[in-house]
């Protein structure tokens, strides 16, 4: 079996990146065994999380001092590349940077911020929130910041197992990832025991992976024990302590097995653009840029520009210049297929294995077909226009529809409209939660007066933050006698710099004191700790002020207003 696993490995297959999941480690080699390989963080990092679950493992501090700024820059570039490729060594590479260097400081800052979110997710799962999806919704934000500490896979797997019993597959995956990261023997054994006990009958693929892993683990343990016995038999004074052999053999076997299990789990390599976009907000700037390019250069300038001429052709009224124009746009210049292919490749280069636009994105597949159709119609258009024209119009219409789909997708990216619909959604969602639903609110007031207000925050994150604030407010007034009042409003202010600030105020009538510091201090049990981390990512801020008009306080979120893109033409119409 091990030979088979090694062969699978050597074939260069990479583990699939599953949509919606945290980075799956794609080991390019064994994430195994010797501590020298592991570039482990120093113990001070684990100590800073005292009280939380950390594996008890002696690790060497492989963070050698690197005084040379050049090598730090190069190391940072490498570490970043590993992270982008979702390589399992990314975390160690980030931790290995010298914290005295700017790169190391940055890495540390981001790792710590992301770490807080991951741990917050685990804590929230454990705390058993009524809103099932909320804790996990924070994961994309953390993923966009920094790689996950592989040691967190086990507590995450356990938290999922215990508090999301309806989703054992997810827990199983994190168990497998933990095992693939080459853990210490005791924890590996516990993990194998636990993952084996998950109810996976309804998911045969995952069950098969787990079985394979467990079998490999048992085999590795037997082999290691056998060779330990053999080596003891050979030499009475063994130079290597037997447990080390067992551990090394175990870890090697496990890591191989778990990695192979991930490979063998035939998950789709990539998904549609829309799905990848929903699952990975960190891709949004790239997607915006790529979609913009595709729409502008191909869909607008070639397809869109030909619309009028094509319409005339369909009506039978196209003049010769119109026909020439149409032919020029569609068939002239760079061949349409080559241009399309160029855009596709740009998407693939930037977005990597997360998207499969050729096979798993219906919209892109249909568009590719339409483009092929158009190209094929060129000779027919000359020979037999009456047949060719309606087909051309059909293909063209498909591409217009594709353009609309892209526009809709683009509108969902990191930009959220702040309006009453958003605020009502938040309030309704929170009021539907168990604890909040028990609170008899006397007044809920929601108002947004400024139209077209947008902030550069991913909608899910903004909703997450607001829900936390609203939940807090409702529960706070719930602890007070009537009248219990809640209000959410938005104000926009102009700064002396010409920028605009968007402030979302959540007012409540509870006299309970709440300070911004308490919120910032990340008291995860209140869920507000996640708010801090999310805000930092978006360059937002939070403050608490007294409020009047029958409200006791206002918790205010501040963002910079998102403005349309720069585009002041170089030749000045401004000069007038």
């Amino acid at each position, binding site marked *: 079996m091990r030979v088979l696993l090694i062969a699978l490995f050597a074939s260069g297959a990479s583990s699939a990146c599953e949509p919606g999941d945290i980075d799956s480690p794609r080991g390019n080699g064994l994430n195994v065994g010797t501590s020298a390989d592991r570039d482990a963080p120093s113990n001070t990092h684990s100590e800073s999380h005292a009280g939380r679950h950390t594996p008890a493992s002696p690790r060497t501090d492989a963070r050698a001092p690197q005084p040379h700024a050049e090598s730090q820059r190069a190391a940072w570039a490498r570490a970043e590349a590993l992270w982008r490729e979702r390589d399992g060594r990314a975390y160690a590479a980030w931790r290995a940077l010298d914290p005295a260097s700017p790169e190391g400081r940055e890495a540390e800052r981001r790792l710590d911020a992301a770490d807080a979110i991951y741990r917050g997710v685990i804590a929230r799962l454990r705390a058993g929130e009524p809103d099932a999806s909320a804790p996990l919704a924070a994961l994309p934000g953390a993923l966009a910041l920094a790689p996950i500490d592989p040691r967190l896979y086990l507590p995450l797997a356990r938290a999922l197992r215990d508090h999301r019993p309806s989703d054992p597959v997810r827990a199983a995956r994190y168990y497998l990832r933990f095992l693939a990261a080459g853990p210490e023997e005791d924890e590996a054994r516990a993990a194998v025991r636990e993952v084996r006990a998950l109810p996976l009958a309804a998911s045969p693929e995952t069950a098969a992976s787990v079985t394979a892993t467990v079998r490999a683990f048992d085999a590795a343990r037997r082999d290691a024990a056998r060779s330990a016995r053999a080596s003891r038999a050979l030499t009475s004074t063994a130079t290597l302590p037997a447990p080390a052999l067992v551990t090394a053999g175990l870890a090697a076997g496990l890591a191989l097995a778990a990695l192979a299990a991930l490979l063998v789990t035939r998950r789709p390599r990539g998904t549609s653009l829309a799905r990848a976009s929903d699952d990975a907000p960190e891709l949004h700037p790239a997607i915006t840029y790529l979609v913009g390019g595709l729409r502008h250069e191909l869909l607008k300038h070639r397809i869109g520009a030909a619309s009028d001429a094509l319409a005339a052709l369909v009506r039978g009224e196209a003049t010769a210049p119109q026909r020439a124009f149409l032919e020029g746009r569609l068939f002239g210049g760079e061949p349409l297929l080559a241009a399309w292919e160029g855009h596709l490749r740009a998407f693939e280069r930037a977005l990597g294995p997360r998207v499969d636009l050729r096979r798993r994105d219906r919209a892109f597949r249909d568009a590719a077909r339409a483009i092929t159709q158009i190209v094929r119609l060129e000779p027919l258009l000359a020979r037999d226009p009456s047949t060719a024209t309606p087909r051309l119009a059909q293909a063209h219409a498909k591409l217009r529809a594709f353009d609309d789909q892209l526009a809709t997708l683009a509108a969902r990216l990191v930009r959220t409209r702040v309006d009453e619909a958003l605020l009502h959604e938040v309030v309704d969602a929170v009021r539907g939660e168990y604890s909040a639903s028990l609170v008899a609110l006397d007044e809920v007031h929601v108002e947004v007066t400024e139209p077209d207000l947008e902030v550069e925050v991913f909608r899910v994150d903004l909703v997450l933050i607001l829900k936390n604030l609203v939940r807090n407010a409702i529960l706070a007034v719930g602890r007070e006698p009537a009248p219990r009042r809640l209000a959410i409003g938005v104000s926009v202010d102009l700064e002396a710099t010409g920028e605009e600030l968007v402030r979302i105020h959540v007012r409540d009538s509870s006299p309970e004191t709440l300070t*911004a510091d308490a919120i910032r201090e990340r008291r995860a049990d209140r869920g507000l700790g996640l708010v801090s981390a999310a805000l930092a990512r978006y360059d937002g801020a939070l403050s608490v002020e007294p409020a009047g008009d029958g409200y006791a306080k206002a918790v205010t979120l501040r963002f910079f207003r998102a403005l349309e*893109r720069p585009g002041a033409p170089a030749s000045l119409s401004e000069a007038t």
Partner: protein
Amino acid sequence: MTTSLMHPARPVLLVIEDGTEYVEFARLFVGDTFEIHAARSAREALALLADPGADALLVDLRFDRAPREDLVGDVDATAARLFGGDRARALRHVQDQQGALVLGALREAGFPQRAVFVHDFPPRRLANLRGLYGDVHAVASFDATAIRSALAGARRPA
């Protein structure tokens, strides 16, 4: 033809930046039309506007090299007001937007001269700056032709 020191024949362009890129650029590409003066802070700019005065301003937006005491804008107050007490973030903000804050200080002191930024602003941001500070222009890059256009006809108040 005599030129008095008090009333130079050419209009004066006051360049406000914390480095030398803009001044060099101005001397090379608009130095035929304008007499070029330089200020590294609001304080220096105010002094030069008082004497010998200026007809237009060429302003850099980001001042990341200037010492903190030369910056317009109370970092601590900004931290408290905007960034939840994060003074590092507030300092970065004040540095990144320093040109606009300097312009604000100059307007407050009563100097309405045309200001040209070399910065790619979103249209709404530029409109806001105009609403606040009157005669403001922006050119996206060091485009000499465009900058000359923007400065054309600028004159200090009589």
